């Protein structure tokens, strides 16, 4: 049973291995038996004959089916059957594995096919990509070339422009120069012509008036004197002055108009502000101050309309600025109030017309939906975030546990170390004690030897009968003790103990009368046992 067990475990191992992995060494191992079998069929004579059957069986990895008894050999039928069964099992398993392997192969061939297909496809793709890449590279190169050419042309264009600009400017200057020259020539020619005409003393050049006319204004013409010149200057300046005066008048008129408009505006502003006052309760005080200041402004304005001094103008402009500022703040306040009012107004839907209220409702619904969405999103986001946090914390905690465990282990390790040390100490004590004991025994044996010597030396049977008896009793008791010890040890180590026991005991089964030999044997055994005991001590501990 024990043997079959070991075999089956072996087979199991093999089976497990075959299922677990498909490594080549195993394949080799599996291939081996059929190969060897095959070989055996061919070389039957060579492999196995009558003499080497057990070796063959052993070499086949099967348990021995032979019991060799003397020269004849019997086949142990049970083990043979077992062997056959095992072989069959092995064979079946082998077939199964082969089947599995075939399946696997089929699968793998399929996968290989598909992989090849994908490989071809990928190759095609790669080809395509490569082609595209080359196309793109080509295009890029072309574009770069184009860019380069364009840059070149730009550069050349710029140069051209520069050149042309230079040409234009040089031509312009040249033309200007030429024109001036021509004009000078023309002037010279004109001069010459004039001179010639004057020199000719032309008769034709004349005025022929039947009788002289009076001046249009009826006055006589005056001689040109400094006085007339001064008069002309004066008249000119008079004209200019008149113009400026008229312009100033226009401006004054315009100013007056503008002032009027301003005044009116202010009045209207004050009216608006004051009419607003009783309606609003909250800003009563402010309004009062405002309107007071407005009035002040108006007053100053009134003054300024009459006064045309710089001071008045400053006052006016300042007043206007101040009031504008106030108006602005007021309008802003109104705006904010209108805004507030608007929100209040929204709540009270009765005043709102039907369709607008409907629309408002719709919008509000939409707003609420949107809000819900937002909240949901926020919630989800938070959840996600918290989950992440938990993971992190758990990892941290695990780490902590690890540390804790480590600490615990370290502590345990320490205690174990301490224990080990204490054990070591005890062992040492024990060995010391054992050494002491051995020494004591030695001394005792020496004592006994001396006693025995004495016994042999004083071998008179009648010298003292009591004394040896007591000694014997002690001895037997001692021996019995030792025997007990021996049996205890033998029980623990049967294989070791049995062989010498057998070897020793079997030849001398009944020779108790010979004491000396028995005691020497006993001593011998004892020494052996002692040796054994010493030998085994470390094992026991």
């Amino acid at each position, binding site marked *: 049973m024990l043997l079959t067990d070991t075999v089956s475990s072996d087979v199991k191992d093999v089976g497990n291995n075959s299922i677990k992995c498909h490594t080549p060494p195993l394949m080799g191992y599996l291939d081996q038996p059929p190969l060897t079998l095959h070989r055996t069929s061919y070389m039957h004579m060579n492999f196995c004959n009558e003499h080497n059957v057990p070796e063959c069986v052993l070499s086949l990895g099967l348990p021995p089916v032979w019991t060799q008894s003397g020269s004849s050999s019997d086949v142990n039928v049970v083990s043979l059957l077992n062997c056959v069964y095992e072989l069959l099992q092995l064979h079946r398993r082998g077939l199964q594995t082969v089947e599995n392997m075939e399946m696997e192969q089929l699968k793998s061939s399929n996968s290989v096919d598909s992989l090849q297909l994908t490989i071809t496809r990928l190759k095609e793709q790669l080809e395509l990509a490569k082609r595209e890449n080359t196309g793109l590279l080509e295009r890029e190169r072309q574009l770069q070339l184009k860019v380069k050419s364009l840059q070149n042309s730009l550069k050349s264009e710029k140069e051209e422009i520069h050149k042309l600009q230079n040409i234009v400017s040089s031509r312009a200057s040249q033309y200007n120069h030429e*024109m*001036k020259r021509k*004009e*000078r020539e023309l*002037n010279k020619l*004109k001069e010459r*012509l*004039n001179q010639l*005409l004057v020199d*000719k003393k*032309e008769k*034709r*050049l*004349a*005025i*022929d*008036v*039947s*009788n*002289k*006319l*009076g*001046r*249009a*204004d009826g006055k006589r*013409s*005056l001689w*040109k004197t400094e006085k*007339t*010149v001064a008069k*002309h*200057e004066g*008249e*000119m*300046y008079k*004209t*200019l002055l008149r*113009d400026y005066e*008229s*312009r100033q008048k226009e401006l004054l008129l315009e100013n007056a108009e503008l002032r009027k408009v301003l005044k009116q505006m202010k009045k209207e502003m004050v009216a608006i502000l004051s009419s607003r006052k009783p309606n609003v309760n909250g800003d009563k005080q402010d309004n009062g101050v405002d309107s007071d200041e407005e009035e002040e402004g108006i007053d100053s304005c009134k003054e300024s309309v009459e006064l045309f001094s710089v001071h008045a103008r400053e006052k006016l402009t300042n007043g206007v600025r101040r009031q504008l500022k106030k108006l602005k703040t007021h309008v802003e306040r109104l705006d904010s109030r209108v805004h507030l009012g608007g929100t209040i107004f929204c709540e009270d839907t009765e005043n709102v017309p039907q369709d607008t209220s409907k629309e408002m409702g719709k919008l509000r619904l939409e707003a609420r939906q949107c809000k819900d969405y937002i909240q949901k999103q926020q919630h989800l986001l938070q959840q996600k975030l918290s989950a992440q946090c938990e993971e992190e914390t758990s990892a941290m905690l695990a780490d902590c546990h690890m540390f804790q465990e480590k600490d615990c282990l370290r502590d345990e390790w320490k205690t174990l170390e301490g224990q080990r040390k204490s054990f070591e100490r005890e062992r040492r004590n024990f060995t010391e004690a054992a050494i002491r004991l051995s020494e004591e025994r030695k001394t005792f044996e020496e004592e006994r030897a001396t006693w025995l010597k004495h016994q042999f030396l004083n071998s008179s049977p009648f010298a003292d009968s009591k004394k040896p008896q007591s000694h014997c009793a002690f001895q037997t008791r001692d021996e019995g003790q030792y025997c007990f010890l021996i049996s205890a040890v033998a029980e623990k180590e049967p294989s070791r103990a049995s062989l010498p026991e057998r070897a020793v005991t079997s030849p001398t089964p009944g020779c108790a009368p010979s004491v000396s030999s028995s005691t020497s044997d006993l001593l011998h055994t004892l020494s052996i046992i002692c040796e054994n005991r010493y030998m085994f001590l470390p094992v026991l501990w």
Partner: protein
Amino acid sequence: MNFSEVFKQSNHLCKISPDGKYLATCVQYRLVVRDVSTLQILNLYTCLDQISHMEWSSDSQFILCAMYKRALVQVWSLEQPDWHCKIDEGSIGLVASRWSPDGRHILNTTEFHLRITVWSLCTKAVSYIKNPKACHKGIDFSRDGCYMALAERRDCKDYVCVFVCDDWHLLRHFETETQDLAGLEWSPNGCVLAVWDSCLEYKVLLYSLDGRLLSTYSAYEWSLGVKCVAWSPSSQFLAIGSYDEKVRILNHITWKKIAQFEHPATVTSTKVVVYKEVEKRSAAGSEEHTLHNITMGSSLLSRRSKYEIHPAPVQMPVVRPDPDRANPKIGVSTLAFSSDSRYLATKNGQASRSPHVDHHVFDEQLSAALESAFRMLGGCAFLTADNMASVIWVWDMQKMSLEAVLEQTSAVRCFQWDPKRSRLAMCTGNTKVYLWTPTGCVSVEVPSDGGFQVQLLTWHCHGDPLILLGKEQLCLCYTNTGTEDK
């Protein structure tokens, strides 16, 4: 609306005296003076040659007739038909002749702009002004007739001379900061002189009467610049039309730009009234009266036209000018303020000369002639037709915005404001006269047997009648019928 009978005229020489009583017309070498109210001939003067220029003196007493080819000027008196005056410029030649504002001096510009000769009819004295600049508008008298500004070119630099017209005393003489001065113009109040540079540079300079530089304005650089300049009658605004198809308005206090009027190809504003002239040939001679159309006359061969109001946006007809040619037909070529300074009429684009009429020389003379006439009348506006030349833009100067757009079927040759009312008269070289008022727009057929093609028009200084000039004819158009006329 009534029309007078058709009279003969030549060279578009037809002018009403400044006092509004007489109408002078030139027919070849004869000068005919009529009474405006009766159209009876009062006087008939015979000149030595075909008259190329004719001008009334400021007191409506004398008429100047210039014969540029013979360098002759003849002056006739209305009160004393026997009196006469003849000025011979001799071999030095004559290119322009004009009255001084006092009506007793004549300024003759000689050929090549050698000099300006000032002849006095009172003393027979002659004086010369040397180096006048040959430019678009190199001479201008102030509205009150006191001062004359003259552009002068000397040592390749531009100067402005301000003369006192009374005794030709040189009041001021100063150099201007221009590359090539193109024109100068007094403000109507006579206190500010606007001077502008040639089109190569956008530059407008404003000088006080005493020669101080008040301000310089330049809207942009490098591109072609100023094309025309006009003062508002109130002297408040100076409108500058330029080659970038925009009009910029400067104010008279800071001399800064206060508005900019663009002439887009598409009018998108819904506040603008867009009148579009639509022609239709109708066999029937029945008269049609619509809200904005009163077609007058009974001509059988007429093509009736009326105005249609188009809702915005409206695409304007645009002709891209040839950029390689000099003086490109682009930019604001004409500006005219209404007499009350309320409206500004502009025309973006210039006449491209139609193949069947060669007006090159004619135009120059014409414009010179009209210029002087309009100066007398107080309003101004001239010629002609094109990159958007068939469109007149009317701007409201109070709102500083576009008021109306008038799209004609052909290029506008001439437009002028009524000197008394906000009323704009236009002609496009066909048989019709167009009138715009803030309340609406009308096109009127000129009744005549031979087909009267209106090429120019001038308002009487009192606002009525309107004188229409054909190629060799003239006709008066009375816009106020007896019932509404006071």
